[in-house]
C-alpha cells in the first residue's frame, strides 16, 4: 500500500505514495472530513479541483441517515457522493467519546441512542464492518474501544486489550478484504507502557492508525505518545494519526513519522469566518477587515484569493 519515496535524514519524516483502489495518493496527506457524504458546502467537483484525492465519511452518521443499505444501493459512498477518488470511513467509534452521554460500552460493542431519535443501536465490530462494507470506502477502520486521552486508570488498559480483540473480530467479519483495506488502530492512551504492550502492531493489516489522541491532552504528552507509537509501527506501512489537526501539529507529527491525517478544523474554522494563512489565521468577521481590500493571501491561487 505504501511506497516510500524519500526519507528525511534528520527526522522520521518520509514522503511517499499510497496505492489505493481509486488511485494513488501522495503522502503525507491531509484528508478533509465529509461526514455525511459531502464536504461542507463544496461540490465533489470543487473538492477534486482543489487536489483532494482522499476524503473521509463517517460510518455512524451515514449508518443512521440515510442508512448503509441506501448508500449501498446508490453504488456505495462513491456513487452516492459522485466521488471518483478515494474514501476512508471511520468505524463509528469516535462518537463514543464525543456523544458520551448517549453511549454504553461492553465487550459486545457500543450501545447508542441516536441523537435524532429512533431505537437504540448496538455498534459491534461485526456491525461496523457490515456498514463499512456497504459504504464501500477504500480504507476502513476497525472498531476500537475509544477512551478520552484525559482518562486515567484501569479503563485505559481495558480499552487497549479490548481493541485488540475487536480488531480480530473485524478481520474475521470483513467481507471485502480485496476492495477495502482494513486499518488497525493502536490504543493505550498516554501510557507508553500500554502502547508498547499493544500487540496490534504484529497483526498483518495493510495500515495502522494511532488513535485515542487529540482529545484535550497536554501537548507535551501528546507528541511524546505520537513519537512512541510511530516508532513501534512498521516502516513499510502507512501510519494514520487520527483527528490531527492544527498546522503546527501536522508539521511536528510528519517529523515524527506519520503519513495520513484528518481533522474537521479547516472546514469548521471556515464556517466561523476564519481564513487560514501561512502565518496563522485571519478572523474575517472582525471590524478591522471591513475595508481591507487585499486578498486573504496574495500568493494563494485559490478561487477566493483570485477574485
Amino acid at each position: 500500500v505504501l511506497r516510500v519515496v524519500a526519507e528525511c535524514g534528520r527526522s522520521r519524516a518520509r514522503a511517499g505514495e499510497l496505492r489505493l483502489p481509486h488511485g494513488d495518493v501522495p503522502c503525507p496527506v491531509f484528508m478533509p472530513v465529509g461526514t455525511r457524504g459531502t464536504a461542507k458546502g463544496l461540490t465533489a467537483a470543487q473538492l477534486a479541483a482543489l487536489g483532494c484525492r482522499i476524503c473521509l465519511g463517517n460510518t455512524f452518521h451515514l449508518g443512521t441517515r440515510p442508512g448503509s443499505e441506501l448508500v449501498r444501493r446508490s453504488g456505495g459512498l462513491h456513487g452516492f457522493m459522485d466521488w471518483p477518488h478515494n474514501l476512508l470511513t471511520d468505524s463509528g467509534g469516535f462518537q463514543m467519546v464525543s456523544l458520551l452521554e448517549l453511549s454504553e460500552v461492553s465487550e459486545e460493542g457500543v450501545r447508542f441512542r441516536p441523537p435524532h431519535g429512533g431505537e437504540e443501536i448496538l455498534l459491534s465490530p461485526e456491525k461496523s464492518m457490515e456498514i463499512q462494507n456497504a459504504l464501500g470506502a477504500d480504507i476502513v477502520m476497525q472498531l476500537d474501544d475509544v477512551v478520552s486521552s484525559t482518562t486515567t486508570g484501569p479503563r485505559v488498559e481495558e480499552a487497549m486489550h479490548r481493541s485488540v480483540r475487536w480488531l480480530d473480530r473485524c478481520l474475521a467479519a470483513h467481507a471485502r478484504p480485496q476492495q477495502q483495506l482494513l486499518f488497525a488502530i493502536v490504543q493505550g492512551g498516554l501510557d507508553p507502557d500500554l502502547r508498547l504492550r499493544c500487540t496490534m502492531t504484529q497483526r498483518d493489516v495493510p495500515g495502522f492508525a494511532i488513535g485515542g489522541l487529540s482529545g484535550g491532552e497536554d501537548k507535551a504528552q501528546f507528541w511524546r505518545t505520537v513519537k512512541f507509537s510511530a516508532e513501534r509501527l512498521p516502516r513499510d506501512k502507512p501510519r494514520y494519526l487520527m483527528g490531527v489537526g492544527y498546522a503546527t501539529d501536522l508539521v511536528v507529527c510528519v517529523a515524527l513519522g506519520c503519513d495520513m491525517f484528518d481533522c474537521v478544523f479547516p472546514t469548521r474554522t471556515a464556517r466561523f469566518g476564519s481564513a487560514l494563512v501561512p502565518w496563522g489565521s485571519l478572523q474575517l468577521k472582525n471590524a478591522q477587515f471591513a475595508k481591507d481590500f487585499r486578498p486573504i493571501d496574495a500568493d494563494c491561487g485559490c478561487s477566493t484569493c483570485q477574485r
Partner: protein
Amino acid sequence: MRLQLLGAGGGRLGSLAGLGRSGAGALALPGCLLYTRTGAAPHLTHDTLREVRGVPGVAQLALPALTEIHDVLEEYKQGAAKFMGMPDAVLYCSLHDPVTPCPSGYNTNKTVSLWGSSGRMEMTVSKFMDVQRAVQPDWFQCISDGDTISGEAGKKRAKKSVDRSLSFLDMCLQLQEKSPELQGSVMFGAIEGGDILEERLRSARETAKRPVGGFLLDGFQGSAMAKETKLKLIASVTAELPEDKPRIIHGVGKPDEVLECIERGVDIFESFFPFQVTERGCALVFSYDCHPDPEATVLTQNGAQDLEKNDAQEDQDEVAKADPEMTPFEIFLKDKKYHDDFGPLLEGCSCYCCQRHTRAYVHHLLVTNELLAGVLLMMHNFQHYFGFFSAIREALRDRKLEQLKKLVLGQALQGPARATL
C-alpha cells in the same frame, strides 16, 4: 445601450446590446436578471455559478445591502460589481430586495425607507444618489415610492406614489448630471400608481417624458391586487411606453405569471423565484419543452407525473411540512418519498446536479441540513429557470407561444401540494 426588436407576435422578442462599461454586455429579450443576495448569487461562488448554463448577462443587486456598506464602497472606489468579484458583470441596482418584505407606512414626501439586515434605513434623494455614486451600477432603479401593495392604498395614496416618484426622478436626473461616477449609468424610471388605472397611466406618460433609459413596473408585488386588475394595468402601462426602451417588472416570478406579463409588453424579470424554491427545499420540474419529440414527451410526462404525485401524498405527514408557498411547478425534495428515488431531480435536465446526483442524495442533504443541499438546488433551479426564458424566446421565434402557454398553464392548474391542516 441599444434595444433591437425582431418583431415577433405575442411578445417583444429582441435583445439589448452595448451594455456595461465595456459595451460588450448583452441581454436577450424577453429575459431575466441574475438574482444576487448580499454580494453573490445565493449559495454559489464563482466556480459553481460558472457550471450553470444560461446565466443572464445582467445581475440584480438590491440597494439595502449596499447601503449598509456604503462607507466601505466609498473607500473602495471601484464600484459594487468589482467588490463582489464580478468585475465584468452588468449590474442593475434595484431599490428593494424582492424577497425581503417591506412594511408599509414609512415613506414620506422626502424619504423612502429601505429594509436590510440591520433594519430600516431612511433614504433621501441625496443619500440615495450618494450611495449610487459608490455603487457605480450600470443600470439603477430611481428612488420611488412603491408603498401601495398592501391592498389598503386608496386613490389618494396611489396619487401620492406617482407624485413623489416623479419628483424624486426629476431630482435624481439633475443630480446624475453632476456626478461623474454615474455618467455611464442608465436610470430606470419607476411606474407607480397602485391599482388605480388613471394614476398608472399618468405615471407612465409622465415618466416617459423624462430622459430615462428604461422603465420598471413597480407596485405589482404580492397578492393583494386582483389578478385581472394586475394584468389590465400592466397592459395599459406598457402601451404608453416607448417601444425602444426596456421594461422591467419587479415581484413577478412564477412561470405562468411571467408568460402573462410577456404577452403584455414586459421585457425583463427578476430571478428571485428559483431562489425561493431552493429555500423551501424544492426543485423546479415544470416542463417548457413544447416541441413534439418522443424524448420530450417523456420529459413532460415525468414532470407531470411528479406534479400529480404531489396531490396523492396529501395525507402523509411529510407533505404537511412543505412550505405553503410551494407552487405546482416544483417538488418538495425533503419529502420522505424521495429517500430512495435514484433518478435525477428532473429527467433530461443537463444541470450539474442532475448529471451527477440523485433525488435520494439531495433528500439526504436536506434532511441532514448540509450546506451542499442549497448549492445543488440553486444550480438546478437557476439553470431550469434560465432555460425557461430561453424556451420562451424560442417559442416567440417559432410562433409557438400559445403552445408554450398552454403547457405551462396546464401545469399551473394541477393544484399545489399544500398543507391541508
